[in-house]
């Protein structure tokens, strides 16, 4: 587990510090140097794209933005999911039943369609992407949190708090929420890969991150078009994407195993 966590940290470090090592700007075009394969000459370690922009810097930017999107989107779904699930789990009874019914029906609705509609309707601004991706993932979180809350609710310290007259809201925020941290962290690391894939999928449809910013999804999509002639344009960002996803997946798995083991003890 440490290994994958370490790789991730390394990647993030390189993503943020790497561009400092290169003299190139991510949006500086250079029409004399288009589609150069990776070379040490001219400090184009990853080569250049079809507008002559340096791919090393752009890939690093892509990693930055991809991770940013994924983390923020996950936080959005975390906040919504935790609040929703905690309230449902704690209040219980009819309210819980209705809330969970709602979640059940939303669960398999074609969110993808709503996201596409949203993006088309409100013109793809940066913020909306986070919200859209986050909004599609909160259901899982809500369910897990509700389950945890249900079991936490029966614990003594909650009884004590209730008996001494602490308000419901306070109980949820100050007593239940902190105990959810473990479970939440585990699931966040598992939803991040989903968020990353989702963003890359939006980019494929032309609805994701807009120029001159870029993300791994946009880079990969552009690379697919250059597959025949300039395969490095596809291979490098695809490899980075795969490595990041793999690390998150393994890391999340390991976290979950550790957490489950702790639970069942």
């Amino acid at each position: 587990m440490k290994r994958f966590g370490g790789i991730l940290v390394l990647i993030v470090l390189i993503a943020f510090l790497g561009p400092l090592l290169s003299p190139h700007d991510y949006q500086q075009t250079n029409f004399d140097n288009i589609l150069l394969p990776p070379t040490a000459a001219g400090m184009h370690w990853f080569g250049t794209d079809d507008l002559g922009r340096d791919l090393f810097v752009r890939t690093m930017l892509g990693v930055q933005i991809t991770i940013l999107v994924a983390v923020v989107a996950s936080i959005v779904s975390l906040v919504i999911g935790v609040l929703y699930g905690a309230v449902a789990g704690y209040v219980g009874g009819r309210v819980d039943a209705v809330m969970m019914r709602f979640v059940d029906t939303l669960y398999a609705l074609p969110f993808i369609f709503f996201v596409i509609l949203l993006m088309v309707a409100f013109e793809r601004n940066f913020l909306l992407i986070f919200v859209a991706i986050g909004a599609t993932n909160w259901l899982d979180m809500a369910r897990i949190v509700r389950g945890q809350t249900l079991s936490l609710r029966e614990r003594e310290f909650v009884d004590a708090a209730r008996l001494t007259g602490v308000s419901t809201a306070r109980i949820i925020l100050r007593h239940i929420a902190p105990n959810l941290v473990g479970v939440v962290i585990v699931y966040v690391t598992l939803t991040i890969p989903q968020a990353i894939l989702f963003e890359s999928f939006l980019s494929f449809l032309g609805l994701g991150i807009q120029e001159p910013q870029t993300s791994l999804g946009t880079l990969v999509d552009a690379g697919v078009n250059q597959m025949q002639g300039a395969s490095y344009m596809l291979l490098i960002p695809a490899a980075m994407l795969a490595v990041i996803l793999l690390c998150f997946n393994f890391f999340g798995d390991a976290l979950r195993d550790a957490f489950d083991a702790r639970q069942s003890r």
Partner: protein
Amino acid sequence: MLRYALLRLLGAIPTLLLVIVLAFLMVHAAPGGPFVDERGLPPAIEARLDEAYDLDKPLPEQLWRYMVRLAHGDFGPSFRYTDYTVSELIAGAFPLSLRLGAAAMALALVVGLAAGILAALRSNSLADRFVMTFAMTGISIPVFVFAPVLVLFLAVRLHWLPAGWSGNEGPARWILPIVSLALPQIAYIARLMRASMIDVLGSDFIRTARAQGLGTVAVVRYHALKPALLPVLSYMGPAVAAILTGSVVVEEVFGIPGLGQLFVRGALNRDYTLVLGIVIFYAVLVITLNLVVDILYGVIDPRIRRR
């Protein structure tokens, strides 16, 4: 039993209404209209078109008219394909998406389960490593990357399979799309099954069965399989959703005239009625499916019915 079903149904209707209103508002909030073109329209003609499609009326009235027609099963004409109604377009595209999705799901289940069980049985061996690596790659590479790569190698370079959809007869043209769609799900299901199976195989009652002298195959088939399948079963909901999402990409890449592709183009063309029609169609479908599954659960597990 009937009461249970009815209750569920009633619970679904508000959700459906909410979906319709939300979708309607979003589609109409989108700037740009269906009759927009670089070639400008003379004002009199634009006015007639707007009138014919109710676009000149205030939004709430448009919504009301739409719902009334919907209650009669009329999804309206497509704005973009003026020769066809939305119902016809959906009826033409849906069977294709259904077959594609069902085949991919079936493939994913068969291969995924088999791989997961195999990996669990030979846990930590080479076969296990191989299956798991494959599974991990399936999750880590987006469909729109490996689908074109597959097309490039298998169709264009080697000519083993057709490169496109239209104009090609025979089962060959289904293979790449189904495989592309199924691959990520195979990966997920294999991982789930493996983990779950390893769990189950380590439990007491299995040890008892083995102590009684049952062979591996029998143990798996009669004792381990059912409990191990539970996590996979609960993944089926998200799996269907994932296949739905994936189908939009696969249909784009291979040029398959399915519902996903129809939706994307409808959204980009501001084909209001088509987009609304597809969203509602899917919502109804999914709610019905959920209902059926719920009822089945109720049939299988009497405990749930009594809640």
